[in-house]
């Protein structure tokens, strides 16, 4: 992914294909990465709140990484 001529600013419909390519070969869950990346952009867009985003993926992140240190954690969120 380090080709300096790679056109970025990719139209959204083509983005998921690129995201999957980036995550190809990663030892972590590719599908989780794509879904979280998609929703992280939705959070930036204001379509999803930080809290909703955090809660939606907390269990899967804990399962995959053994910890969840995302800054989206809402105040008072129960980690257990």
């Amino acid at each position: 992914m380090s080709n300096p001529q790679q056109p970025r600013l990719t139209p959204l419909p083509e983005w998921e294909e690129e995201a999957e390519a980036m995550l190809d070969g990663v030892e972590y869950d590719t599908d989780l990465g794509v879904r979280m990346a998609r929703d992280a952009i939705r959070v930036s867009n204001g379509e999803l709140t930080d809290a909703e985003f955090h809660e939606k993926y907390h269990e899967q992140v804990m399962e995959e990484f053994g910890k969840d240190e995302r800054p989206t954690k809402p105040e008072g969120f129960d980690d257990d």
Partner: protein
Amino acid sequence: MTNYGLVIDQERCIGCHACAISCKQENNVPMGQFWNRVLTEGGDKMDTPSGGYPTDGGNGSLDMQYQPTACQHCENAPCVKVCPVNATYTRDDGIVEIDYEKCIGCRYCMAACPYNARVFNWDEPEHMPEEGTGDVPARPQGVVEKCTFCSHRVDEGLDPACVVNCPADARIFGDLDDEASTVSKYINQYETHQLLEDRGTKPKTYYISGEMSPGRPQTSDKLESELDDVQVWSDGTDDVPADSGSGGSAGSSTGGIHSVDDDAVGDAVPHVPAVDAGGDD
């Protein structure tokens, strides 16, 4: 509070890649990777235009423009939200940075970045010369890297290397929250746009197109606060006056956050009229 941002004048950018190379040099970026890129808008490959030559005395459709890109240091950065170990974080001054000690190489941040601003160390980083370059230690294999706005330089009151080494004076760096800063004045004066504004990421890199901003003389390594009395332009044009300061020529590597006076910006004569900025002929 300080909130750093960058303005890139696309009418001034000549596509020389000095920003990309100086970034590699300053930040010890491994071979095969770029934190800072100059994309070509036009043809399929670097420095190739779209369209064709004029034929039969008519107007041709040749068109080529440059799109410099790097980390946009988004205020609302998806990469920060998605990092499971908080390795990607936003500094108090707005610079988005990566803690390479924490990064586990999951690359979720790469997938979440709409600007493709991040690179991953697939292999053992290779440097030329082997001992590396610049003032930043090499990153270990297996981490994600990206532009830091040269935070190590910014911490010492200097501009990023790409800004200092741009021979076309197309880059301006400074505090977006300071209305008197040069970046703020340019953003207020010119019509700017941000990349992928519809994504809501609030990038802190602004692009000027359609009207060329005036050139700024390099002004040595003085801090912005020391430049309050510096007169950058004397005649209201975008020509750099002969007695404009110690740095003088473009391409100086002396750094310094630049100052600009309001009148000079307001009276500047654009080299490229907005209507004809596309270069279609």
